[in-house]
Each structure stands twice: as structure tokens, then as C-alpha cells.
């Protein structure tokens, strides 16, 4: 029984350690290194990137959510630090337009196919 408990804790803690580091990397990939040329934190080894990585790691250890971490960074460095622009009133069309284009494309395709089908029938 004791052996199972040890195994359980070993698996549990290894798992949580892995997921935490996966989460760190996911966040690093979404953050722009502001002093580098188009690199993410994950790709950069600059001083600035390493400092931010340390802060992000500390915040993850303090159980802060991704949203809280991104907010902390945006409050200090602006939206530019995020690779994905946040959904705001000023950026809403950036998110809507591709969707509109996609829907319109499907609509045109559907109309064309129906037209060809009707013609062939």
C-alpha cells in the first residue's frame, strides 16, 4: 500500500512539474522579446528575456493565472508585448474580418456548387 502511495505522489508531482514547465513555455511563446528582432521570449536569451522569464516563472509558482500574467506584462509594456493582439474595441475587427471572409467564402462556394448541381440536373 505504501509503495502505491509513493508511486502516486511521484507521478503526481512529476506530472505537475512537467505541466508547469509546459505552461511556462506556452506563455514564453506568446510574449515578444521587446529588445530582440521579432523573437519570442522562448527564442531569446537576452537579459531582458531572461528577466521576464524569471518573473513569469515566479508568478506561475505563486499560482497566478495566465490572464493575470499577461495583464501584468501588458500594464508595463503595452499590447505590443503579446504576439496575439487582445480582443478590444480597437482590435475587434481584426478578429471578426477573417471570420466574415471565411463565412462569405463558404457561402459563395455553397452557391456555386448548388448552381452547378441544378444546371447538371
Amino acid at each position, binding site marked *: 500500500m505504501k509503495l502505491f502511495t509513493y508511486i502516486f505522489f511521484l507521478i503526481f508531482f512529476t506530472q505537475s512539474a512537467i505541466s508547469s514547465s509546459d505552461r511556462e513555455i506556452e506563455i514564453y511563446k506568446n510574449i515578444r522579446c*521587446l*529588445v530582440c528582432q521579432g523573437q519570442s521570449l522562448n527564442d531569446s536569451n537576452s*537579459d531582458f528575456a531572461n*528577466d*521576464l522569464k524569471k518573473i513569469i516563472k515566479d508568478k506561475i509558482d505563486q499560482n497566478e493565472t495566465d490572464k493575470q500574467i499577461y495583464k501584468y506584462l501588458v500594464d508595463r*509594456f503595452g499590447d*505590443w508585448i503579446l504576439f496575439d493582439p487582445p480582443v478590444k474595441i*480597437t482590435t475587434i*475587427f481584426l478578429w471578426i*474580418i477573417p471570420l466574415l471572409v471565411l463565412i462569405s467564402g463558404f457561402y459563395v462556394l455553397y452557391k456555386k456548387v448548388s448552381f452547378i448541381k441544378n444546371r447538371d440536373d
Partner: protein
Amino acid sequence: MKNQFKILILALVFFIFVLTFYFALGTNNKNNTQVMVSKKLPRIELTSLYEEEKKISFPKINFKNYYIINIWASWCVPCRDEHPFLMKLANENKVKIFGINYKDSKMNALTFLKELGNPFYEIGIDSNGQNSIELGAYGVPETYLIDNNGIIVLKHVGPINKDMYQKILDKIK
């Protein structure tokens, strides 16, 4: 009627496109270093460069005037360029300057000050750069002008030059 509806939809989509690009092209989507301006200075606490037991904390409470926070390091070449401007501000007693010594060795920092003069009222050590990140700093040198309510009124990334020196004077007069 059906055709009219189609044209209306197309016109609407086109209008949204034009509107989006019109506003998007007009906004600055590059890195904005002024994000912290008009915001309250985040709370930080540093160990004094001169006395290890002494803590220096920001924002300054009950400070009736503007003050400057300058992030510097002895290894930073542009810091040497801006130093005469800091000395000028300090010598003319225009504004109190607080230094944040960034990722530096104590000995090198003290030698730097001995060599070029010390314009700082107090100096705190940021040995790992974490406190500077808290202020929204990218590196060294960086300068913040803070008002008596603890609001950042001016932020400058890079060495202080003639223009920036004048801007600081204009703000504090």
C-alpha cells in the same frame, strides 16, 4: 430585391474593411515605451548601495516635489553620456534624483561615482533586474520623472540628452 440585398452586404463588408484599415493605419502598432506614463509608480523596495541594512522604497510618501528615478550601471556606456546632465540637475538643486543600480557590482558602481561624481540623493541596488522590470524598464539607462502623487509624468528610454534635459526642466518648473 435579392440582388439589392447582396450589394448591401458587399457594401457593408467593404465599408468595415475600409474603416478597419483607416483606423489601424493611423494607430501606433509598434512598441510603445510610454505605457507607464500617467500611471502610478509600482511599489518597489531596494537595498541601499551604501548601507546594506537600509531599504529604499518607492513611491516616496509625503514627497512634496517631483523626483527622478534613474536606472544606471557602471558597465553601461550610454550612462556615462547622460551623467553630466544628471550632475547638472543635481548641482543646480532642481530635483532630487534617486538611482537604481542595475545588475552591477558594488565596487564598480562606487568607482563609477567616484570618477564621474554622484548626482543621486539615494541609490538602491537592483542586482537581478526584477525591480526594474516592475517599473516597466527595458534596460539601462532609463529615467522616470515622478510627481508628488507618485504618478510617472515622464519616461525616457536611453541616455538623457539635451532635449530630454530641457523636457525635465519644463515639467518641474
